[in-house]
């Protein structure tokens, strides 16, 4: 099972959580009645319910671990589906989300996510691993102003070539 294999490979990124491997995620559903502030999610791997969320593995990594995590998926034969961002304005953070899937019948969807501060949003590029990440990263730069360090051609893709705004930021005013 590729899910198991990928899970083990990704868990190597988080040495401290190695011992707590089988413990199920202590998150979501059932606890929906508590609207109080949740603590920010620590980096680590969560196994999601595919029938609800549509993906199997959800790994939050530090920006420095990003290329390692993506290399694991590349070597396991995944393809990059999309890259995007989410502006968590209340927490002052921007999240970069990478979706990966597979071509074979061993179904496994993996989400890699990383969070960076809003005022200096920068993550390393993965274009060196997946050439197809090029446009996705340019688009994410367009929409959120995230810098992909090492990207060969980080100019506007979908926005006008002189665009100096980032429309998907939550404080964007047209």
């Amino acid at each position, binding site marked *: 099972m590729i899910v198991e294999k990928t899970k083990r490979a990704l868990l190597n990124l988080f040495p401290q959580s190695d011992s707590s491997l089988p413990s199920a995620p202590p998150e979501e559903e059932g606890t929906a009645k508590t609207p109080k502030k949740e603590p920010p999610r620590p980096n680590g791997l969560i196994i999601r319910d595919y029938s609800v969320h549509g993906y199997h593995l959800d790994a939050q990594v530090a920006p420095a671990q990003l290329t390692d995590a993506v290399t694991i998926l590349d070597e396991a034969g995944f393809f990059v589906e999309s890259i995007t961002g*989410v502006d968590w304005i209340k927490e002052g953070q921007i999240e970069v989300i990478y979706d990966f899937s597979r*071509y074979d019948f061993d179904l496994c969807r993996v989400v890699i996510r990383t969070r960076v501060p809003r005022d200096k949003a920068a993550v390393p590029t993965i274009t060196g691993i997946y050439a197809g990440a090029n446009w996705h990263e340019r688009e994410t730069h367009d929409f959120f102003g995230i810098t992909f360090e090492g990207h060969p051609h980080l100019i506007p893709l979908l926005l006008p070539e002189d665009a100096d705004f980032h429309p998907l930021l939550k404080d964007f005013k047209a």
Partner: protein
Amino acid sequence: MSAPIRIRPDETFTLNVGPQHPATHGVLRVKMEMDGEYIVNAETVIGYIHRMHEKMGELKTYPQFLMNLSRMDYLGALGYSHGHVLLIEKAAGIEVPERAEYIRAITVELNRIASHLFWFGAFVMDLGGFSPLMYALQDREYILDMLEAVTGSRLTYSYYRFGGLYNDVDDDFIAAARRFIPRMRTSMKKYHKLVTGNIIFKKRLEGIAPLSPEIIRKYGATGAVARGSGINFDVRKNEPYSVYPEFDFDIPVFHECDSLARYKVRMAEIEQSLRIIEQGLDKLPGGPIMPEKKKPIKIAPGDYYQAVETARGSFGIRLVSDGGKTPYRLKLRSPTYSNMHLFDESCRGMLIMDALAFMGSLDLVIPEIDR
């Protein structure tokens, strides 16, 4: 008097294909660095028809966003709507009556055939054959009439609702669909006789623009582009959704990796879609097309992803919910975006006419790339 023109043998020039060029089928621009007829380098420039659907997704409530999905891909709109409603139904826990899912599958497949027919005609026209377009549009017209009768529109269908459909199909639709199947099968024979075996057609495509499975994977290409390179990947089979597991159909895969293989995949897919429609009509259950009670859409905070196989490949839609009335973030993963992306790298060293044929074989719909 001007100075005489000296041509240096190592000189290249820049050729702008588009944004208004008939071969690009939309506002797509490719900056090509040319050495005579050969492409040294190419840079695709997109975004001319970017409308920021994703921002609209954040500003509109869930039902208000329904019609946006049909305005992404104007040739195969239903496939995109299908992905959207499936995602919201999954996230909000809405049950869909079986009849509605069958009708969805039938209409999506009809739309897929219509999309492939248009592509077929336009593709052959790119290569210099005009009349197949006329035949293809005639067959496509038949589908558009059928879909117009039940959906109310001919192109930008907004037919699906969360939990079901806007309108039930009537006996006329079913009779028309049944008549269409043999008609289309006869047409396919005609197309193969007219086009597939044509020696000029073959010479333009065979062995041209080979895409290795590795480059497909690195760019995340899907749909007929991946299946023409020997990758057996179709979301309907790999990640079954809706009522597709109920149908007996094959995924055409060709291993030649060239432009002709991508053509063959789509032509074979038309026949498979006909099989699905046929079985769908046979099995079509009775019953309601919408759930009894309508509930307001409430989605627990979290991430949700849904992929569907559209006419152009795997369309993904990612929802980040904060529990509110509108999505916190809605990402649309367009299949042609990834399929087109590999063009720059793959067309190097190609003759420009081959590259344009290659571009045609990718089945581009520009508004769908730009979103």
